[in-house]
């Protein structure tokens, strides 16, 4: 069995940034494990631009963004495995990897989970109707078009207004397909406002809010879908059903952190984020196992994935220097207006970066952190949106003498 200080599972945005950050912290015995045939993960199929604005102050395409990290990784000679899948992870941080050379066992002091996320499927959201070909999740369609150079269809309906769906509406239009409409079940889009503008409105693609697909037709290939308008309580408004002839249905109905390995290892997950419950440095319920990126919480901007990875490596370095003493055990409690928070618990009162998602869109809102009666911090936002993650840092001074922590949006 080969021993490593840190093993990183996943060579996408999070894993790459974590690897580079580990090296910068002087961690030498490092190994990054990627199941695919190349580094960069999903960024490789995101050939549109808009990546890197925060991190590099320039708008890059996905592969360019990945390349910046891959080059650092190569420069610093950080070892990595391709075409290698972690098939087992134990609480003792024993990692079993399978590849064309067989099965390899590693013992790590720290494991960083960076497996990303997967797409929610038709089965999970229960769309009724037939089961023809021509139904793709947006990410699969993106892979087929951008990486394999195939065309998936000609007349397209998109269900769900997640960012990948919006990006694909534009991509398919540029490839000559007709994107008939994007239907979103909620009264607001789940994608970023800039993507609504640049991918739908600039191409005259209608976004139908409060609409969903209620039937699918086709024996061989998809021949049409029926969409309907939803009322306030989520029921179908009578008379609102309309049939749309199309050959392709794209689903952009949510992303699910890919935590199969975490579950097998016995890591506690947060039912709302779908990711591990972590402390302020991304450490999961199993000591020495950390998580960052979309496996921890689904991000809307890749820059934040990289930043999060770099941020948790601080904790990794601390852990390797000697298990830090738990200074406290404070559960971050959410009051109204907020769907989730990461981290879920604090066990030290050092500077901490919090991520939140709000329940619904709103204007002129403020996030209030308080310890009992005492307001620790108040941060105002001209508008909030469930599609946009809110990130707020609290300094060690602000957290000093903290007994409890509650957060609400008002």
């Amino acid at each position: 069995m080969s021993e490593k200080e840190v093993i990183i599972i996943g060579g996408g945005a999070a894993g790459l940034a974590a690897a580079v950050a580990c090296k910068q912290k002087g961690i030498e015995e490092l190994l990054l494990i990627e199941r695919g045939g190349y580094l960069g993960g999903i960024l490789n199929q995101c050939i549109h631009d808009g990546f890197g604005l925060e991190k590099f102050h320039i708008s890059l395409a996905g592969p360019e963004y990945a390349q910046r990290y891959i080059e650092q990784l190569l420069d610093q000679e950080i070892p990595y495995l391709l075409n290698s899948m972690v098939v087992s992870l134990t609480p003792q941080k024993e990692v079993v990897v399978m590849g064309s050379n067989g099965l390899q066992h590693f013992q790590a002091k720290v494991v960083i989970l960076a497996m990303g996320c997967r797409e929610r499927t038709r089965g999970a959201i229960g769309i009724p109707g037939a089961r023809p070909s021509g139904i793709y999740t947006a990410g699969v369609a993106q892979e087929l078009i951008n990486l394999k150079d195939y065309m998936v269809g000609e007349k397209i309906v998109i269900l769900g207004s997640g960012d990948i769906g919006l990006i694909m509406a534009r991509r398919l239009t540029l490839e000559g397909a007709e994107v008939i409409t994007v239907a979103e079940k909620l009264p607001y889009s789940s994608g970023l406002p800039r993507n609504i503008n640049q991918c739908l409105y600039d191409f005259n693609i209608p976004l139908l809010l409060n609409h969903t697909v209620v039937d699918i037709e086709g024996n061989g290939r998809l021949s049409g879908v029926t969409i309907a308008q939803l009322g306030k309580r989520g029921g179908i408004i009578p008379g609102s059903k309309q049939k749309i002839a199309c050959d392709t249905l794209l689903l952009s109905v949510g992303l699910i952190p890919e935590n199969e390995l975490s579950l097998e290892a016995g890591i506690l997950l947060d039912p709302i984020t779908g990711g591990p419950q972590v402390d302020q440095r991304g450490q999961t319920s199993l000591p020495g196992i950390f998580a960052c990126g979309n496996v921890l919480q689904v991000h809307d901007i890749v820059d934040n994935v990289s930043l999060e990875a770099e941020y948790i490596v601080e904790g990794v370095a601390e852990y390797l220097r000697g298990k830090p003493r738990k200074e406290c055990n404070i559960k971050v409690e959410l009051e109204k207006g907020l769907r989730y928070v990461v981290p879920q618990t604090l066990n030290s009162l050092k500077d901490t970066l919090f991520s939140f998602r709000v329940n619904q869109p709103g204007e002129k809102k403020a996030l209030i952190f308080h310890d009992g009666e005492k307001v620790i911090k108040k941060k105002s936002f001209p508008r909030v949106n469930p599609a946009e993650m809110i990130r707020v840092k609290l300094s060690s001074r602000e957290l000093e003498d903290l007994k409890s922590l509650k957060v609400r949006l008002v």
Partner: protein
Amino acid sequence: MKTINHDFHIIIIGGGVVGCAIARELSKYKIKIAVLEKEDDVGWGTSCRNSGVVHAGFNNRPGTLMAKFCVEGNKSFEDLCHQLGVPYKKIGKLVVAQKKEELKDLQKLKQQGDANRVDNLQIIGLNELKRLEPNLVGIAALYSPETAITSPYLLTIALAENALNNGASFFLNTEVKDISRLDNSYFKISTNRGEFTSSYVINSAGLYADRIARMAGIKKFSLYPCRGEYHILDKKASWMINHLVYPVPQDGTGGLGVHLTPTIDGNILIGPSNEYINRRNDFSSTFPIMKMLSAEAYSFLPLISSGDIIRSYSGLRAKQVPSSVGGFWDFVIEESDTVNNFINLIGIESPGLTAAQPIAQRVVNIINKKERLNSNSSFNPFRKGILKFEEQDEETKKALIKQDSNYGEIVCRCEKITKKEILEAANNPLGAKSLISIKYRTRAMMGRCQGGYCQTRIMEILREYFELDPKEITLKGNDSYLLNGYRSNKENNQSCQKKKLLSLEEGLLV
């Protein structure tokens, strides 16, 4: 291209589990047989769309073929699976009463089972029920330890492959359009792929058996499709039950009630509903039934949540009477009294999977009585399935990867299926080449991500292996193409793209 001689002694119409079992049974004799199947693979009708249960035989009226063949089939099923390399597990079944009024129905069911000579049936009380199934809501149950589960599609594939190996011919994508009798000695069968001739026709066309009979001039049969919808649950819910869990059946309905079925692969099925419909190819799921299934399952097993559902699907039962009559009518397995040498199998619904082998033997007996069949001394009853890498121990895994590095590449993450297994499935002797054929043979794409990770990889493997044009890769044969072709090769697309870009540029200039 090699020319195919389309002249056979016996032609079997329909490659479902029964048609394939008949083909295998007949391949024990020296005769030229062929199976004509309209789909791209065997087993895509009712055979792949059921609960996968090997019934014990207490649900059927004593004296019926259904009861007789079900009990017989149950007793020989394990051997059959063993010969064919098909998974089989005797997990037992509980018919659970939730109300006092249902207790007498359990007694009746047990009496019926005893009359059918089903072994080991017993009524169990609350305590024993709680011991067997702690998570279940119920007051008593009929416990049938002889009830088992299998993989209905793997069994159908295995029967077909074994028949093929023993000399039977299979014609996929071959839809029968007409049947005529030539000079009263042989049949001419017209299909979309040319004409076939044979001395016997065995009509095991399942949902279409009445139509096939009518083509031969036999008008006495009508079939009524009765749809059963199912949900499939994530494997992470599989710990909740250990046995098949059925409600007390209601008289006059088309099914046995919505039950919870652990599958041989470790999922749980909820279903099926029973609803008579008009179209024989309408395998839709419908919103009200999807909701009903979840509610029914919840009443037995409150731990189940709709978040556990990973897929919904449906199958059709070939009913011999309309919903106004309802219930189960006995299997018809007989030579036509008007058309010589034409053997009809009508209304083969549940327990058709369990009874497939006895049904096949009955068909062989019918023929054997008309002419003595010579046995095929080289018949080999054994067939090996695709080796499941994930089920091997670590040393075997290492050795396998050393042998063939394709074992070292996991293609399907959820079900841990390797590239080698996908390639073996692609190399199937029947020549089925669609995504669904790979799925049924390997379980790839059947996990919780439903092919999100592996579907594109499997499409690439199929394209390379069969040297397909992108447009020829299909989900399930025929017109179920997955891709429109290459992105850049499509003239149409290119001109559209140019137009769009021009209009964009114009937009920018303004």
